[in-house]
């Protein structure tokens, strides 16, 4: 069993250092030993060198990177091996899976072709044999009807299916080591849970050793045997999963673990729900319908179907649901960015669309929008000061000097020094950019804020800080908020009420604590179950296995 410390090492990385032509090395000193059949998690904040370490193993560093130290596999030194030498190892002995299933597959080739190509690279030339093996592989990664799927193009598969195909590719030549670089980050929680279970089963069946790179401590707790914590290119701590979670030695590990948001254990006590607010809601959706594509051409896609929802003044409503369930659409609808196909949207009791054009602008003035991607939501050409000022400029609020003063106030409100007004977005970190976006949203004193996954692009620790700030500002300023997120833990932390969307329909709504503790709907329960719990003692897979044995 992998738990045995006696299994022999298959991959040994010693004193690996990787540098680019820039002051700080990407990886400074990393030593890791991977043992046969184990799952080793590599964790750490963004930029800590996780991916670089994994890429160095297969000689896939970006151009310009220099690596020193040693990476030994099966007694062979991999660092500095020729391209031809590496090609013998790549795929056949050590395989790698990448984060983005959407782009990791060639869009213009069928998956059958890509599987055959992977097999061909290591000697399987016969087309028939390759096809058979491809079907076998697809079956192994639990893709239904594998024979039919061979002729599909990547875009015809769902995200989870694509990630399974990527796994199948990596497993094609039965490698001894699998390097998985954030293989589930881009996926829904439900899909993520399935993929993780699949990884675990593969390890069990083939004895493949897996290096799992992730920043999600829940995932680590779920399946890793051992954990290696990286910080700024160095290994800061290493240990058996359960021990490390229970007794982190290093302060960095401790912060990392502390930043992790947790859901209450299922079935915990239900607090009494607050009575429904009788005031006019900040926003109210009445039986709204949204369709994408022209209905005239018969391609209309119903993104929202008969959804009714109210957000009371000062209330934070979390909107959750799987990818594609219509969360973003509902948020954009409030902001007037998508056309309404049916129903009504009321802002403070006024029907926006029924209002004359001139009034519509004023109605919307009390509304602000924070986008998921802090990078894309700021114009790269404007200084952050100008970006924050923009709403004031548009509505000609006060004199220019007053506007500048207001910018300084807002910066302070999001806990950034006023000197930052001069910077360009790209001179800021992700978390800082998201604060700027927040500051801009608050510029006109909105009564309603629509936040579309505002923290999903951020690191756990940064996310924690931004959420903290958000919560604080919300309490202080008392704006209502529609908070969209696929991360149930985040919603749990910030929201008063939660609404669950599924395929364009509202399935459940209610106070957060009630819904999360005692979901009325099956769908909600599945969502909650799929969330990895950052606590190795409550590991589900293990539990199942322990029960079975």
């Amino acid at each position, binding site marked *: 069993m992998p738990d045995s410390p006696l299994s022999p090492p298959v991959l040994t990385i010693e004193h690996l250092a990787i540098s680019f032509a820039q002051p700080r090395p990407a990886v400074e000193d990393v030593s890791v030993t991977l043992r046969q059949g184990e799952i080793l998690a590599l964790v750490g904040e963004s930029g800590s060198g996780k991916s670089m370490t994994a890429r160095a193993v*297969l000689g896939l560093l970006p151009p310009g990177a220099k690596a020193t130290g040693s990476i030994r596999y099966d007694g062979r030194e991999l660092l500095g091996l020729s391209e031809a030498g590496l090609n013998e190892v790549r795929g056949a002995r050590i395989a790698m899976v990448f984060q983005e299933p959407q782009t990791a597959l060639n869009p213009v080739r069928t998956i059958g072709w890509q599987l055959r190509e992977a097999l061909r690279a290591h000697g399987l030339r016969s087309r028939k044999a390759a096809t058979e093996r491809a079907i076998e592989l697809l079956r192994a990664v639990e893709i239904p009807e594998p024979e039919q799927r061979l002729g599909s193009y990547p875009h015809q598969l769902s995200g989870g299916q694509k990630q399974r195909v990527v796994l199948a590719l990596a497993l094609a030549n039965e490698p001894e080591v699998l390097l998985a670089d954030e293989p589930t980050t881009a996926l829904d929680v439900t899909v993520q849970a399935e993929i993780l279970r699949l990884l675990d089963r593969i390890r069990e069946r083939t004895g493949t050793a897996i290096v799992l790179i992730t920043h999600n401590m829940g995932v680590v707790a779920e399946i890793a045997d051992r954990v290696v914590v990286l910080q700024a290119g160095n290994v800061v701590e290493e240990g058996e999963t359960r021990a490390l979670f229970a007794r982190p030695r290093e302060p960095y590990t401790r912060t990392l673990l502390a930043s992790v948001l947790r859901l209450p254990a299922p079935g915990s006590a239900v607090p009494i729900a607050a009575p429904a607010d009788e005031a006019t809601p900040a926003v109210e959706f009445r039986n709204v319908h949204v369709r994408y594509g022209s209905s005239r051409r018969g391609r209309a896609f119903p993104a929202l179907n008969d959804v009714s929802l109210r957000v009371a003044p000062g209330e934070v409503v979390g909107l959750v649901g799987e990818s594609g369930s219509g969360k973003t659409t509902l948020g954009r609808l409030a902001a007037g960015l998508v056309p309404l196909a049916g129903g009504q949207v009321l802002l403070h009791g006024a029907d926006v669309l029924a209002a004359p054009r001139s009034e519509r602008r004023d109605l919307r003035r009390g509304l602000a929008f924070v986008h998921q991607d802090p990078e894309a939501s700021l114009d790269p050409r404007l200084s952050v000061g100008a970006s924050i000022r923009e709403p004031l400029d548009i509505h000609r609020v006060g004199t220019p000097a007053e506007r500048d003063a207001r910018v300084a106030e807002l910066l302070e409100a999001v806990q950034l020094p006023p000197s930052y007004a001069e910077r360009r977005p790209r001179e800021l970190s992700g978390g800082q950019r998201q604060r700027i976006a927040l500051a801009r949203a608050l510029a006109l004193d909105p009564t309603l804020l629509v936040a579309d996954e505002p923290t999903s692009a951020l690191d756990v620790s940064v996310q924690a800080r931004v959420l903290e700030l958000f919560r604080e500002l919300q309490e202080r300023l008392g704006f209502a908020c529609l908070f969209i997120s696929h991360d149930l833990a985040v919603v749990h932390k910030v929201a008063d009420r939660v609404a669950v969307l599924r395929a364009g329909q509202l399935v459940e709504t209610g106070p957060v604590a009630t819904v999360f503790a005692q979901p009325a709907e099956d769908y909600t329960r599945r969502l909650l179950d799929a969330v990895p719990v950052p606590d190795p003692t409550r590991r589900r897979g293990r539990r199942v296995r322990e029960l079975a044995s």
Partner: protein
Amino acid sequence: MTRYLLSRLGSALLVTALASVGIFALIRLVPGDPVSVLAGPDATAESRAAIRAELGLDRPFWSQYVHWIGDLARLDLGPSYKLGGDVGSLISDGALNTVVLTLFALVLAAAGAIVASTAAVVWDKRWLNSLLSAVNTAAVAVPTFATALVLVLVFAVRFPVLPAGGTPPAGFFSQPDIALQYLILPGLALALPAWAALTRFLTESLRTELRQPYVTTARALGIPRRRIVLTQALRNALPATVTVLGLQLGSLLGGAILVEAVFAWPGLGRLVEQGISSRDYPVVQVLLLLSVVVFVLTQLVGDLIHAWLDPRVRLNGVS
């Protein structure tokens, strides 16, 4: 897919229809009178009036236009004012020459570009890249007419190994080997800038493709770089290249005017020039419309090939 095609076809037809009115009006606005050109300096007023009536130029504008479109619909292009003969047969000879030359140049440019850019990307040698980029820049920087003349001087006059110009005396198809020799110099002069543009674009696309995650996936599977370039990156870079190729066709047609002049290649370029200078409305109208149709068709065909090469468009109609 079909719907996508239909909408493209619709806008193509609209452009062509607009163009026909525009061209018809435009050419009549050009100062200078076909009748005086035709009659010559020594003609009397009566003879000019007689010619005007004979050409139907005394009718009102709209009636002339309706007649023209009606004739076009019946594939009757009418007679040339100047050359007397039917515009259709007049153009068909020139069109054949121009089409053969342009297509030859297009094939030369496309094939050359694929070879050059895959070689540059597969080998990725410093000297090869420098050499290619130098040749490339030179090919763009030297005007077509200069290249053409230098080619004539070197390969036809100084070292007479290839014909100095003209079309193959026996036509293109009865003696293909001879025809090829006649095509080489003008084809080369015409193809060079297009080749350079295509090579640059394709090399760049291939490099971009090689940075895509799917290439990393393939590399991580141990597939050799050369194979990745040839079977995957190239396949992904082609759809966009086809679009660029379509745009190049336009510049090739433009360049053909110069090359045809230098190589005494009796193609459409000369017809356009002469047609305009002699105010031969029927010829010019048809030629200009033809150029619009070719442009529109190229775009359409380019889109088609693009769609066919890209399964996302082919199967879902999205791009």
